[in-house]
């Protein structure tokens, strides 16, 4: 008799903070949330991700204020943890040369569905690593160093927490077709599993560089590829919101359609997993000295349902004024349920959720440490 497939009925939130990791287990209605944690209290956790291919393996990017970076693994959805035997690390250089050292692992991405056990990791300083044993051991990608890292102008000024590799996107039709986002550095594409890379930044502004239309050196904050339409890419950049439809090569600044008083600067974006034309962004104040807080102290999520031609403000339930929230690039997530649940975490330690695709928001956690990432998994 065929084994029955159990449909996911609950949502688990995986929250990484500057001071540890927290898991939130929702009831089937997504009304009540049970907190499990902190895990690794005091550790700097940049990312925490559940493997959608098996529903049990979790990887965590961790370091502390003193100790070097590592990756922790769980095979039981966070009940127990083991450290990677060989965390991401750059090659040792010959005596007399100055070699790179991984400061922190920033982003973790489960690999293609056809490659169970494969994971990708992006680091600061810039590095791309691959594991073929579900995070136990990691190896650097030489072609990425040659085609991307070595080409970046060393004069580029790094982002506040250092130069990072953040978005590692895998084409669901082809495990060897990859995209990566570097902040600062730009968007890059590989057709061969990471052996070679080329820039993919045409049409993207880089207002912080003197060159008008540079080939690379841009600052995507986050990139996303739509799972049902893998030729559709979006990015929230330091200089606007963009869409690219491959095989096109030139990004379109869809953020131009945002209200002028709000602008199109922000860190995160989230795609609707069943509709390639629908996405949400969380604008921040990118004017004058770049406060990076909610414009005017009035937080809002903005949604488009037509690929960025028009945008709607969604702020019901969010504070009406005097709320200066910052939401980091990995701290906004969707849960895959119907209707889609959305979740974002703030640097002030609050988690806000919407169970109706952004129409109404409510706060489900507060007083957490500074939130670095939120991911949502249906379990």
């Amino acid at each position, binding site marked *: 008799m065929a084994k029955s497939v159990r449909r996911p009925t609950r949502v688990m939130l995986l929250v990484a903070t500057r001071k540890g990791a927290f898991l939130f287990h929702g009831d089937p209605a997504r009304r009540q949330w049970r907190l499990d944690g902190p895990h690794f209290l005091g550790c700097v956790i940049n990312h925490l991700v559940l493997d959608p291919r098996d529903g049990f393996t979790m990887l965590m990017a961790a370091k502390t204020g*003193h100790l070097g970076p590592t990756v922790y693994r769980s095979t039981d959805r966070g009940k127990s943890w083991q450290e990677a035997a060989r965390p991401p690390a750059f090659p040792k250089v010959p005596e007399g040369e100055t070699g790179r050292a991984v*400061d922190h692992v920033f982003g973790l991405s489960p690999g293609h569905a056809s490659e169970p056990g494969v994971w990708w990791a992006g680091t600061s300083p810039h590095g791309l690593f691959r594991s073929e044993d579900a995070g136990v051991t990691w190896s650097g990608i030489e072609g990425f160093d040659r085609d991307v890292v070595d080409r970046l102008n060393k004069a580029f000024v790094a982002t506040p927490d250092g130069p990072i590799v953040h978005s590692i996107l895998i084409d669901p039709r082809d495990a060897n077709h990859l995209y990566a986002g570097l902040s600062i550095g730009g968007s890059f594409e590989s057709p061969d599993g990471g052996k070679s890379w080329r820039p993919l930044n045409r049409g993207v502004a880089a207002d912080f560089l003197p060159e008008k239309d540079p080939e690379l050196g841009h600052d995507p904050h986050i990139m996303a590829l739509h799972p049902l339409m893998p030729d559709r890419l979006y990015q929230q950049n330091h200089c606007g919101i963009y869409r690219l439809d491959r095989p096109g090569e030139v990004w379109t600044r869809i953020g131009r359609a945002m209200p002028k008083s709000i602008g199109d600067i922000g860190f995160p974006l989230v795609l609707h997993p069943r509709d390639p034309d629908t996405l949400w962004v969380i604008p921040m104040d990118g004017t004058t000295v770049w406060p990076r807080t909610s414009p005017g102290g009035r937080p809002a999520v903005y949604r488009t349902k037509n690929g960025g031609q028009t945008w709607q403000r969604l702020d019901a339930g969010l504070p009406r004024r005097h709320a200066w929230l910052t939401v980091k690039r990995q701290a906004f997530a969707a849960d895959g349920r119907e209707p889609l649940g959305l979740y974002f975490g703030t640097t002030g330690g609050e988690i806000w959720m919407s169970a109706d695709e952004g129409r109404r928001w409510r706060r489900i956690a507060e007083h957490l440490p500074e939130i670095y990432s939120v991911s949502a998994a249906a379990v």
Partner: protein
Amino acid sequence: MRVFVASPLHSYTGGRGEVAGAGATLAEVLADLDARYPGIRFRVIDEQDRIRPHMKLFVGEEPAESLAQPIRPGQDVHILQALSGGVRS
């Protein structure tokens, strides 16, 4: 020799702040520790064999600048956390 281990590393040493060590240099002591407490070395020493910026190693009472630091019989090793470690990465 005795090796005194700062609290962030106690998860590796089974909660102990003092463990036995062996070796004629800091490099040898750390290799010995890593064999018995896998992973501890990389948290203290980076992949270029540099002492991490917010860790301090002492041989006896003298701060060590590199892993080549020799250790004489009777000297203890201290693996300490620097007060600078609260800074952001």
